[in-house]
């Protein structure tokens, strides 16, 4: 039983991380039907900015005196930088192709992904960028079961961001504009919604979420690396599809399921087949329910 609970906690943490990345995928897809394969690279870039910022703060000695302030600063910097980067990427690589076939944009996204990850390798080097010290060190220890403060932070922050995002999309004017743009770009433009601005905003928010996930990933695993975006990116994409791509809550649930299946697959069956189990679940769900678990909202509730 203790073993099960420990694995459940491990699964929740990993799933929470996937869910945060999947939220960005799903938002961008919801608005312009583009699978942004460069999303995993925003996640890595966010992790790098976090490492640089925290390293700088710790060099100044603020890390010991004001840890929360430093962390907030790192989050703001990383999310801001990635939002800016995403807007740039959108302008350069996706916007000119918006009128072409979807395949062109998809290829452009793949190219952007390779470009960004190699760019990071060339500028930041091939070694791991280390997070200065393990923040939130320690945790609760119940004999067999250990819950670290970091795990609690990841899960609660993911939940908070989901709630915030839901409020943004369903309760605000900007959210309404997003939903309108998702439904019909031309018509929404006719009623004076700046659809280009809305698309940029969606990219910015999605990349910001990915950057937040990148910092948490760095804190949790101790370091970040230029190629770290690829695998979690693919997993998060799978999570978004599993939950029903375009659906925010679906991305969340999909992320948690992929994380859980991986951990339980590794914990009870075999570590080498965990990815296989995760993708079997994905294929199974798509076979029986092609729209994903929560279903793709074709009506006005889609972001």
């Amino acid at each position: 039983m203790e073993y099960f609970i420990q694995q459940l906690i491990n699964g929740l943490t990993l799933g929470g991380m996937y869910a945060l990345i999947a939220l960005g995928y799903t938002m961008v897809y919801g608005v312009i039907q583009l699978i942004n394969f460069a999303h995993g690279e925003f996640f890595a870039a966010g992790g790098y900015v976090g490492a640089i910022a925290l390293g700088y703060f710790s060099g100044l000695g603020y890390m010991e005196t004001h840890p929360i302030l430093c962390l907030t600063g790192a989050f703001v910097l990383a999310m801001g930088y990635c939002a800016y980067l995403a807007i740039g990427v959108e302008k350069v690589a996706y916007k000119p192709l918006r009128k072409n076939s979807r395949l062109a944009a998809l290829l452009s996204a793949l190219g952007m992904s390779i470009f960004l990850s190699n760019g990071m390798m060339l500028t930041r080097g091939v070694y791991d960028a280390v997070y200065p010290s393990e923040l939130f060190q320690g945790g609760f220890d119940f004999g067999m079961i250990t819950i670290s403060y970091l795990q609690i932070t990841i899960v609660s922050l993911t939940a908070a961001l989901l709630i915030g995002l839901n409020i943004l999309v369903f309760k605000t004017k900007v959210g309404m504009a997003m939903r309108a743009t998702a439904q019909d770009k031309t018509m929404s433009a006719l009623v004076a919604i700046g659809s280009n601005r809305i698309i940029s905003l969606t990219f910015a928010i999605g990349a910001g979420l990915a950057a937040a996930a990148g910092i948490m990933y760095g804190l949790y695993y101790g370091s970040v690396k230029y190629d770290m975006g690829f695998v979690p990116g693919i997993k998060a994409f799978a999570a978004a599809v599993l939950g029903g791509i375009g659906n925010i809550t679906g991305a969340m649930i999909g992320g948690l399921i992929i994380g859980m299946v991986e951990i339980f697959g590794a914990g009870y069956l075999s570590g080498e087949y965990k990815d296989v189990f995760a993708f079997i679940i994905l294929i199974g769900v798509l076979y029986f329910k092609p729209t994903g678990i929560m279903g793709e909202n074709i009506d006005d509730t889609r972001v």
Partner: protein
Amino acid sequence: MKKRVVSILVMGLILVPFLCGGVFAKTLRIGSMSPLTGRYASDGTDIKNGVLTAIAVFEEAGGIPGFDKIELFAQDTACDPRQAVASANKLINLEVAGVVGAYCSSSTIPASDVLAEEDIIMITPASTNEKVTDRGLPYMFRMCGRDDDQAPAAAKFIKESLEAKTMFIVDDKTTYSQGLADSVAKSAESMGIKILAHEHVNQGDKDFSAILTMAKKANADVFYMSLQGFSPAAMMMLQAKRLGMKSQIVTQDAVFQPKFMEVAKDAAEGVCLTYGFTDPSTPEYKAFEERYVPKYGKIAAYATYAYDAATSLLKSIKAAGTTDPAKVKAELMKLDFQGVAKHVKFAANGDSGSSYIAFKVVDGKFVPYWEPVNGLIK
């Protein structure tokens, strides 16, 4: 008609640099193969830097008679067998005199088959799998140690020094890590240690919480971690510490990288690993350190082996006075000098001997801890 003349002229101009190259300068071409991108790019870059240092040392000492300069063609294998074969073919086309590489055993083996067809000398600084030299290729040499020397040394250490009775093994299924883990399991079992489980993770995994929870439950005396590269190893250590695992952690040569402690921090303390012994107090090592550190940073696992491999190759070419592989090989076999990493003397099969001892991480440093003959090092 005019168009055709112009195009022929242009084609001719394109060829000029290729034709001139051979006429005006005689360059000694050396190849290196290591992963410069991908997961093991850091170790691969260390290898390239080691070879570059060796070349710089040689050029400063007057180079090799008959050649204006020595040029390195560093190929990226990405630790991928297919890319390694492609790199080997590229080096053949470049007509290199010898190759230092590759890093992953799974790349070295197929690449050496290709190079062997053209009788090109290959010296690996990092591939420890037995098959590398056991296939009997005439021009295959190895600077580092062998897995079937490392595994018994590790098992002996676990048995004698740590007095372990049970062991939990994890590897990541690469030719290197799984081969080594299997050999360690076999040696340990023959010494009476019980293997509680032998689990696998995937290359590129960052989250090991499931496997570590399993290991914590098994509560073995020793947790043997066989992973390719220091980066996943450091992550595994951090997560093991967070989970509160109590088993003694033992690992292997791929983790011997100063960056390991930088990433794993406190979690690295007390970790033991087996690695070929290099004496950092020799004048050769000190000279290497003075030259390498300001340019490339901390000396890592394979930079010294790569330096010794490249030095051996260049020394032999210089002594032979030609790049003819048979003559260079004859000179290689005659070599007997103190290198940076070890004393260089090749055996008939191309191996240069192993010197595995156990290191322990103390205060963020790898400290020699135990050696197979005399036990604990004081």
